[in-house]
């Protein structure tokens, strides 16, 4: 044995190599074709760079080349999970520019379908969030229920996913005769499944461990990043355009704005963002029930309009509360039958931009959960 070698190092000298990992565009939990460039120190995320645009379908270019009613199908394809909600701000904007009011019955049907689609969207959001956590079974339970909602949409509009149902000045068709019974039945069904999901997934100990105190988004950061919808409300910010800037007939209904309260962790963590969606399903059910009671049975579903819709010169920013947050359309008209410019303010686009901010310092597995809790749809991010 030789003499003992003196070992002289400090902890700070033990450098480890950082690893750059490409997550996506094909990855099971990027919810589409998002690509994240992640820098990992061991398993700890030190930097996230989102690369988007893998689904850039030139929505705004198409709008400039289509007439006003022809834009609606493209609007559908922006956020393809909740098409009805997408159509609403667009047609409201065009109607406002034209200066027309739609019949009472149309407003009610629009609200009912928007809220129904909100339920369907939140069900997908909770389902895929559970899937990210590894719970496959709740995913299928929620999809089972969503299928019944889609059946109602199909009866009304003929489409399962993309509807083209809200038209400028009214609706494409009147609703089917059994509309009210169908919706009452589905509302009951949704409430039952909600209970099941709460037991199976949301209050599961492992699920709480995974999501509580992860990806905390403070309210002021949420405002500065322009977050809206459940992402902002999860941070305790009661920002809901249905209450703050009432459009359509939302001021006639009694419902609560659900905010995150930090029930199991900190206000603004992943669990809060998810539970806001869960409770919003219940609030939507309340709105639908009230709307069904108030809705007039008789009435026209189409306002008389000229064959070619030519809004006067001007511009408008029409916004509505999408399930994912504030969806706005900035429509510029030049007096012709095709819009000069339509800019869609993609909710997911803005919400996703907060991801690098809130995912630093968490584990790689948490990054997936944070991304799932933001609930993005790439069609809207990339348009």
């Amino acid at each position, binding site marked *: 044995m030789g003499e003992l070698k003196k070992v002289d190092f400090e902890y700070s000298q033990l450098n480890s190599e950082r690893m750059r990992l490409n997550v996506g565009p094909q990855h099971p939990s990027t919810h589409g074709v998002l690509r994240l460039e992640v820098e990992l120190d061991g398993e700890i995320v030190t930097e996230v760079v989102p690369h988007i645009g893998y689904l850039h379908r030139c929505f705004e270019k198409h709008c400039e080349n289509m007439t006003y009613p022809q834009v609606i199908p493209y609007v559908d394809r922006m956020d393809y999970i909740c098409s009805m909600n997408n159509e609403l701000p667009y047609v409201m904007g065009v109607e406002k520019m034209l200066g027309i009011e739609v019949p009472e019955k149309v407003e009610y049907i629009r609200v009912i379908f928007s809220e129904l689609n909100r339920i369907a969207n939140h069900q997908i959001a909770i389902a895929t969030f559970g899937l990210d956590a590894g719970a496959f079974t709740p995913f299928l339970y929620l999809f089972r229920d969503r299928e019944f909602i889609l059946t109602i949409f199909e009866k009304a509009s003929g489409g399962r996913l993309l509807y083209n149902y809200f038209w400028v000045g009214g609706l494409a068709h009147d609703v089917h005769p059994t509309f009210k019974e169908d919706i009452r039945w589905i509302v009951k069904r949704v409430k039952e499944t909600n209970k099941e999901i709460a037991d199976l997934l949301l209050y599961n100990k492992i699920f709480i461990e995974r999501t509580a105190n992860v990806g905390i988004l403070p309210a002021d950061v949420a405002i500065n990043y322009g977050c809206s919808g459940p992402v902002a409300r999860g941070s305790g910010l009661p920002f809901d355009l249905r209450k703050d800037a009432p459009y359509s007939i939302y001021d006639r209904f009694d419902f609560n704005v659900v905010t995150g309260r930090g029930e199991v962790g900190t206000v603004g963590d992943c669990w809060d963002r998810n539970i806001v969606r869960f409770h919003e399903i219940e609030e939507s059910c309340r709105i639908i029930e009230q709307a069904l009671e108030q809705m007039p049975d008789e009435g026209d579903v189409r306002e008389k309009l000229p064959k070619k819709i030519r809004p006067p010169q001007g511009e*408008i920013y029409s916004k509505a509360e999408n399930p994912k947050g504030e969806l706005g359309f*900035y429509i510029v008209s030049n007096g012709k039958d095709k819009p000069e410019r339509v800019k869609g303010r993609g909710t997911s686009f803005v919400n996703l*931009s907060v991801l690098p901010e809130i995912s630093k310092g968490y584990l790689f597995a948490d990054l997936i959960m944070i991304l799932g809790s933001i609930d993005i749809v790439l069609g809207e991010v990339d348009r």
Partner: protein
Amino acid sequence: MIEQEIYNKLKEHFGDAIVELKEAPPSDPFIQVNPERLQDICLYLRDEGDMLFDYLSNLSGMDLAENLGVVYHLYSMKYKHTIVLKVTVSKENPNVPSVERIWRTADWHEREAYDLFGVIFEGHHNLIRILNPYDWEGYPLRKDYKTPEEYHGIKVPY
């Protein structure tokens, strides 16, 4: 607070930098602003006690034939009022000060406006293309844009 009051207050503070207020219902009223002092104006709008426009709803580029425009839709979480700012720059020299430091959400919005219209935001920390590939040529949403024949050996037109 209605638009006229906001306009008066801005005019009082910034003088010539505020060009005009346009109101023509049913269109949204907007305030035309000079690009030079945009950052100061935005900071003032965000922090002034009775305005508090802390939420940038939307930022969109515009192609106005000869010029390029940038439109800002602001919203106040506290007072729940809105205002629209508009900036116009020439196509030859499309420089607009970046408001990324004021509202972080403007980061991606500005990158998008750069990507699609070619508006250059001065002071933006990372002004690269966001939707189109990084080696894409041209600014697709300009009215005179022509679809390329080929991209990386793949035929683009139908």
